[in-house]
């Protein structure tokens, strides 16, 4: 088995406030080289919190337990300064809402080449050449027409590609894409998917894709992890998962897709401040029995996958 590039072990994130909120509960994940892992779940289930925890972007009010190992480094024990060297250079993140993630006062060229100047101390001519060659891959042809533009002059899809280019120009080992397709139309989604896929296959990078777009996840991911209420409920290879989801929540998710009949999951997701006892999904589960309401199921391997459900063990 290949060695994982990044490995989360029992990661828990709690936000302290008037009442403590456990946004991520005991999540263990690993991504190997060249792999695309899709982290899927509904809004507020803690997907983005995981991404922020990896990048060390969580506010002071959050306490993080467990470990995040990147190659042989423990990211959680690094100082802000050491993290700054890793961010962008080794691990990159692509945020949702590209138009707001670009600085309105700089040109596209400046924003893409900025990390070259900062991290690599590249000379101007070289950086310009590098940027030009790099944006060609993102469909900006000829580069001279697009590079002097400002983000406000570009469309949402263009901004998304610019943002991806800006975060990946240093060829980081891991790219985290936090809902990269949010607010884009089908055409742009396909385009973004293709670009992300190319990024991975080209240099053996790994990609963590955070999304709630199942169709998108199916097309580009190798492995899929379903999150519900701060926990991972099922991990499987994308192929197996879409062929036959095991966890009732995963089944519900797939049934709610338009092509599968648009059947919504009843109820709404539980509050994270007071999660239900037992299995967190049991109030909404069709197959629920007494055990589910009392005991909390573990994420156990069944076949090639891992499922957090008593019915599947």
């Amino acid at each position: 088995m290949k060695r994982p590039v990044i490995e989360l072990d029992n990661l828990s994130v709690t936000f302290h406030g008037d009442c403590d909120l456990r946004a991520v509960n005991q999540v263990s994940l690993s991504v190997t080289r060249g792999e695309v892992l899709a982290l899927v779940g509904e809004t507020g289930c803690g997907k983005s919190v995981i991404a922020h925890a990896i990048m060390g972007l969580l506010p002071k009010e959050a306490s993080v337990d467990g470990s995040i190992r990147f190659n042989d480094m423990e990211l959680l024990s690094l100082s802000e300064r050491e993290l700054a060297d890793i961010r962008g250079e080794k691990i990159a993140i692509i945020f949702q809402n590209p138009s707001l993630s670009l600085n309105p006062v700089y040109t596209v060229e400046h924003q893409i080449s900025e990390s070259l100047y900062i991290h690599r101390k590249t000379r101007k001519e070289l950086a310009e050449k590098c940027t030009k060659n790099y944006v060609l891959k993102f469909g900006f042809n000829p580069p001279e027409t697009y590079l002097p533009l400002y983000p406000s002059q570009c469309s949402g899809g263009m901004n998304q590609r610019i943002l991806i280019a800006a975060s990946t120009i240093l060829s980081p080992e891991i790219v985290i894409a936090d809902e990269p397709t949010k607010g884009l139309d089908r055409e742009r989604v396909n385009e973004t998917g293709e670009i992300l896929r190319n990024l991975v296959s080209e240099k053996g990078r790994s990609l963590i894709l955070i999304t709630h777009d199942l169709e998108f996840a199916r097309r580009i991911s190798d492995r899929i992890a379903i999150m519900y209420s701060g926990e991972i409920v099922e991990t499987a290879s994308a192929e197996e998962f879409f062929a036959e989801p095991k966890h009732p929540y995963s089944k519900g998710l797939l049934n709610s897709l338009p092509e599968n009949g648009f059947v919504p999951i009843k109820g709404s997701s539980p509050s994270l401040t007071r999660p239900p006892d037992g299995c967190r999904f049991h109030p909404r589960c069709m197959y629920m029995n007494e055990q589910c309401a009392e005991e909390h199921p573990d994420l156990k391997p069944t076949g090639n996958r891992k499922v957090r459900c008593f019915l599947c063990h």
Partner: protein
Amino acid sequence: MNKKGLPSLNRYGIILLFVFLCMALIPSFFSQYDPDERFMAYEDPSSKHLLGTNDIGNDIFTELIYGTRISLTVGFASAIIATFIGLVIGLTSGYYRGNVDEILMGFTDVVLMIPKIPLIIILAAFLRPGIWILILVLGVLSWESIARVVRSKTLQIRETGFVMSARCMGFSPFHIMSSDIIPNLTHVVAPKFMLATAAAMISEASLSFIGLGDPSVKSWGVMISFAFTKGGFIREMWWWYLPPGICITLAVISIALIGFSFEKGKQTVKIE
């Protein structure tokens, strides 16, 4: 709004300020005499001396022209000092938040409470009157409101996506502040800078008028002060004391107009 998208008031402000700047930069173009040249004292306005002469026979029009440089220098130099201090303090406290913010904003509150003019009077009484000391004191005492505005704007901008992604690209806090946040602050800092300039010019004039300015450097305020003490008012020589007053007013109005148009003309950063 005119074609260039600038509010029309702005144009008059710019034209006025441009005239004053020309007067400050090339005074010899406007007046034929040297400010130290002496003629008959207390002369009435004539074609030779547009605004007459003063008690020691200097041409008042020449004095007025040469005074522009001093008054504008005091205004802009102290505004630069104030803006710099305000920007550094506001940025630091807005970006780092937490205890740094508490301490810096507490300090700002303390400075905000100090009555400016009385303090300057006391300082001027103890320090040797000099134009650079005046600039320094005015600058060091008028940064608080700039710091506050910068802080609140920084708090807003630091939460935007592009600051977040800049952090994710591994840029240092200094780099983020100087190249991501400051450029987005210009539309709040620019009007503040202009207003600070205007306020400093007025403070300078009032201090000079009560005799706490530098008498060896003839600014507009010093001119009025001399007109007052050397008999300009008694002799009803309005051409001595009125023109510097009008100049101060016009200069302040022009700068304030430009400042206001900055405020009106710009949009705020969109936050989500």
